[in-house]
């Protein structure tokens, strides 16, 4: 880690969320993420980990606590929310590519509409990104014609095309056939080497060990343990963590 304090990208304090039916999904969660860090969030299903990271770009709201993204506080101001969404990219478990647009158009849509850049410029950038994730030849295909691994790589490229400062990954490989998990993780590994801040919800232990700066365990709506991967996997402090690791290792 660096010696001088790096800027805080994500600062979440005491976040509480109740669903309309009364279910207490987040019970006072704290998390800080510095620029350039890769944080992996793990936990059993229903632990609230997906819900938590979705609060970072206002896909989920919260009732108590505070969240600041790159210094901007998440509240009820639409302008703030729009500003945050421009800087936070998200990759979904279900890919969520736009099926009626070609791969290239999927990437080009948001930057031209939201950042008002010229189509030619964005297209050039998009092709470079597609090349980086290894799908340049599929640029004119439609998502339905691609395999799952290819679609997820396009999704990553699409998020990158907006040049976000933070990338959120919500179980990006959970919907993929095993042989395609690796190609997506490879792309994510590459990204982790660069300066982008990443928060990844996943079950992939090897990925976390190799790439994460910190691993966070969430269970029943709160953070149980937070540690660098070496310590997290080899010498966890909490019983709950040990139980969880027993299940997945």
């Amino acid at each position, binding site marked *: 880690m660096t010696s001088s304090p790096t800027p805080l990208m994500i600062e979440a304090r005491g976040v509480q969320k109740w669903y309309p039916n009364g279910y207490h999904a987040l019970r006072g969660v704290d998390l800080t993420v510095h620029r350039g860090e890769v944080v992996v969030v793990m936990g059993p299903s229903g632990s609230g980990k997906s819900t938590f990271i979705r609060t970072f770009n206002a896909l989920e709201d919260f009732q108590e606590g505070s969240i600041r993204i790159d210094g901007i506080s998440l509240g009820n101001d639409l302008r703030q929310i729009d500003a945050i969404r421009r800087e936070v990219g998200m990759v979904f478990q279900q890919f969520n590519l736009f099926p009626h647009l070609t791969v290239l158009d999927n990437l080009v849509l948001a930057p031209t509409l939201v950042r008002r850049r010229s189509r030619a410029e964005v297209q050039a950038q998009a092709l470079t990104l597609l090349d980086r994730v290894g799908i340049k030849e599929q640029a*004119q295909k439609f998502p339905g014609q691609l395999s799952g691994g290819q679609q997820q790589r396009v999704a990553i490229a699409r998020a990158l095309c907006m040049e976000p400062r933070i990338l959120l990954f919500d179980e990006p490989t959970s919907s993929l056939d095993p042989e395609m998990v690796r190609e997506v993780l490879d792309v994510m590994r590459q990204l982790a080497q660069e300066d982008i801040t990443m928060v990844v919800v996943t079950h992939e232990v090897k990925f976390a060990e190799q790439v994460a700066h910190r691993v966070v365990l969430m269970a029943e709506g709160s953070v149980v343990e937070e540690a660098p991967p070496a310590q997290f996997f080899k010498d966890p402090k909490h019983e709950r963590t040990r139980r969880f690791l027993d299940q997945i290792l």
Partner: protein
Amino acid sequence: MTPLLRRLRSDLFATPADGALSLGLIALITAAAVGLLRWAAQKAQWAVIQANSTLFAVGRYPQDQQWRLWLLTALLTAATGITWGLLRSHPRADRDGLLWPRNDRLVLGLLAAVGLWLPWALRLAPALQTRWWLLAALLAASRWLAGRFGTQLSRPMLRLFPLVWPLIYLIGMVLISGGLGLMPVSPSQWGGLLLTMLTASFAILLCFPLGVLLALGRRSDLPLLRWTSVIYIEFIRGAPLITLLFLGQNILGFLLPGGLAPDRIWRAAWVLTFFAAAYLAEAVRSGLASVPKGQVEAARSLGLSYPQTLARVVLPQALRVALPAMVGQFISLLQDTTLLSLIGLLELLGVARTVMANPAFLGHNAEVYLTLALLFWSCCAALGLGSRALEQRLDPQTLSSSSSRP
């Protein structure tokens, strides 16, 4: 026994019951077909159609102003031909298209048959015949031109082309009703196929945005919008169209200040529009429901605003799914224009009934009805085929983002 005969036997005569059924059906169909053909060729007097062809086509539109309608038809024909040709010369991004696929050749053959043979068979006046032949030629020529030279059009020109259609619609309105130096022709003189097409196209064009708005309102989280949409839709869907048309004719005058009321034809057209919008809303609603929530989430997380998400992500997908149901509504709308004859408007059916009441053509109801039935059937079937072709082009097979191939 040859394979064909064997198959026929196993398909049609597998059991005695099957055999009897098949024989019965064959007898029935042959008898009906023969009877119909014999009647059509010998006993039927088609003069009734020929003598009234103009009445059927445009109602009581003044004779000396009918050139405007011919002009409009020519414009529409050219636009159709060019659009068709352009569509074929610009296949979808990931597909290679043929310039003259088999379907196109079939359609062209059919059009040639109808456009060239029919005017002659109906023994129309030579002037009329020539005009129909010219129109058919115009269609074929514009189709060929657009197909051949379409790829040479620049991209901005291509994007602007669809604007031609609303333009023609506006020009058409001026041509039909007058103004701008043309002699005005009051709506009460519009009739026949002209009136049918006019009211149907008016209602189809306007019910579409209204229906989409209603569908969006129906699914809205805001209670007021939702309840307003629900009340409107259920109110309209509960009432027979004839009662609404009747209402439009009688009460609309009272709803406006000073009892001023637009012409009866416009009243009916607006009623048709509001009626169709409610049904269209239901079709669009099921389309909207088919778009996975993840699409909206992805769009919003990319920073797209709500209107942008709707326009670029949700509606394109929703409308593709809803397309068959929507076209079904349009076909119903076309058929519903016949109800205008029950409130005294002389569209196609109304004209037909006037013709049949004419003592000179007594007893020739069947010929008239058959012609009308054929005309409606062709239009509706054509719309159905067009919709299927459109679906093909927007192939739903590619419309599933979370499906993956091994």
